[in-house]
């Protein structure tokens, strides 16, 4: 087998370092017992960024409205718990995935015939419509203030959520993230995932070889929306509230920024980006609220100009340079 073919044949195999994030995740549980609330937020954000990576990094769909699905999942769980008494967490996640996925499929079916700035605007408008809907339907959604003080049944009937130390929430989020990650990893290395990458790289050629481009994109969009919905549901279950910021442009732009910062189209970019962005924000934002925004702005400009593949892209370039020198 030629080296190139070998690389293609073996790249889906699990490498030793892929265990590191999960070991770190479990280690963090014991090392930082006082920061588990923050850790849970990071895990939720990683999952959200991962769902965006599927559409943006792999399928090449640029969207500014991904928080629509995060919010859809969050509101599904919150409204089911507040109005229907449906407080079982795991089935809540499934319901959130179904609702968000359905919205994703429906909106993707309509929107994905466009591209570029038009698509960006259409996704933004879809999200704004949902946000306005949540704002207006105050009887069901709590309007601008959202629904605070939700009660959820204990996890698997044995582990209650505690809002003081977030112990069960953290492990729950870690487990859900792991399950979703395995799913996404399988997906991007499957023939389906390969065809998404093909569409990103050269749409015309994919049309020419007879790939059903639009159907593939819509399905990827739907799957990604469902994952974002799971992230939103996790957010609501962990923090026991939902409000309108789960649907806002801030959240959509924030997740886009941190994914690019980490490096899109490479699975672990979501991890690196979410951790780097949120830790920096957590540490700096309290001390220098204005300078923090300045720093984020400068970082973004630098990434757009010099490091288009984010932190992981830089790391790859550095390691490639080292290995080529050794050879």
């Amino acid at each position, binding site marked *: 087998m030629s080296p190139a073919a070998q690389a293609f044949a073996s790249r889906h195999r699990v490498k030793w370092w892929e265990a590191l994030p999960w070991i770190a995740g479990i280690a963090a549980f014991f090392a930082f017992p006082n920061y588990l609330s923050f850790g849970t937020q990071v895990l939720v954000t990683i999952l959200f960024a991962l769902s965006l990576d599927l559409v*943006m990094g792999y399928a090449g769909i*640029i969207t*500014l409205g991904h928080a629509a699905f995060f919010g859809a999942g969050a509101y599904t769980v919150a409204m089911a718990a507040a109005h229907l008494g449906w407080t079982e967490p795991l089935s809540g996640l499934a319901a959130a995935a179904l609702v968000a996925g359905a919205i994703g499929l429906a909106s993707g079916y*309509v*929107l994905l*015939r*466009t591209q*570029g*700035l*038009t698509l*960006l*605007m*259409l996704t*933004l*408008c*879809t999200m*704004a*419509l949902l946000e*306005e*809907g949540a*704002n*207006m339907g105050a009887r069901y959604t709590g309007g601008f203030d959202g629904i605070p003080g939700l009660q959820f049944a204990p996890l698997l009937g044995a582990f209650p959520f505690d809002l003081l130390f977030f112990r069960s929430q953290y492990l729950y989020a870690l487990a859900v993230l792991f399950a979703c990650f395995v799913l996404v990893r399988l997906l991007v290395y499957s023939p389906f995932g390969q065809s998404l990458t093909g569409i990103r790289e050269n749409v015309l050629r994919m049309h020419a070889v007879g790939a059903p481009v639009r159907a593939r994109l819509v399905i990827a969009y739907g799957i990604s929306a469902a994952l974002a919905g799971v992230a939103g549901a996790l957010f609501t279950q962990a923090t026991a509230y939902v409000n309108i910021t789960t649907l806002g*442009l801030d959240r959509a*732009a924030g997740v*886009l*920024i941190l994914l*690019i910062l980490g490096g899109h189209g490479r699975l672990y970019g979501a991890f690196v980006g979410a951790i780097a962005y949120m830790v920096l924000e957590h540490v700096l934002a309290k001390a220098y609220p*204005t*300078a*923090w*925004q*300045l720093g*984020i*702005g*400068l*970082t*973004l*400009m*630098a*990434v*757009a*100009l010099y490091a*288009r593949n984010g932190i992981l892209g830089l790391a790859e370039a550095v390691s490639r340079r080292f290995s080529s020198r050794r050879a």
Partner: protein
Amino acid sequence: MGFVNLAHGAFAMLGGYAIVLAMQHWGWPFPAALALGFAAVAVFSAVIERLLYARLYRASELDQVLFTIGLVFVIVSSVTLAVGPETQTVVLPEWLRGQTDLGFIRYRTYSLAVIAFGTLIMAMLWLGFERTRLGAKIRAAVDNRRMAESLGVDVRRLFTLTFALGSGLAAVGGGLGAEILGLDPQYPLRYLAYFLIVVAVGGLGRVTGVFFAAALIGVLDFVLKIEFPQGGTMFIYALTLVLLLWRPQGLFGRRAA
């Protein structure tokens, strides 16, 4: 120019600040302050364009979006640091206050002046783009940069000029609108969606398109908010959604070749 520039609102805000501060601290009259805002922002944006934007003309839309969002953050926080987070107020000169009798209706003088001035600028822009040599060069360079360069058009200089002009006009817009829209450091982020909607609906690269889209959206948004106050901003987004699905290239945009 075919660049996804989310920082346009930030230039408008900078212009607004330059105008307001020139009037407050140096006691400049309103028209002179407007001219100063235009000139200051045009020069500033020309520098930024030459140094930074020029590297990204051939980059993907994603990189352009990212870069300009970053620029917005930088400008927003710089202004907050330098001037402070509070809202700035514009003190209008005597001759623009009060109301004017138009014969059939009495209306705010300032609003009338803004409408007249805006129409004048639009007319000049339209004439400039469609009827002058410079406008023809710009349109040619946007449509096919390499061909225009082959024919001897200095596209680099042309784009810098166009960009400076666009940002300067944004500055004037920021100054004129400050009285109506308010002026504070969060301004570019708050109106980002509106600017984008107007441009996307009007169609890129069409001055007349932007004008009609702005008028259409402004009027519809206003009327619908009065008629159905409970609808909030929902209509504007729904409308944009439908319009863009119907005509992805914008109402007046040309079909992509």
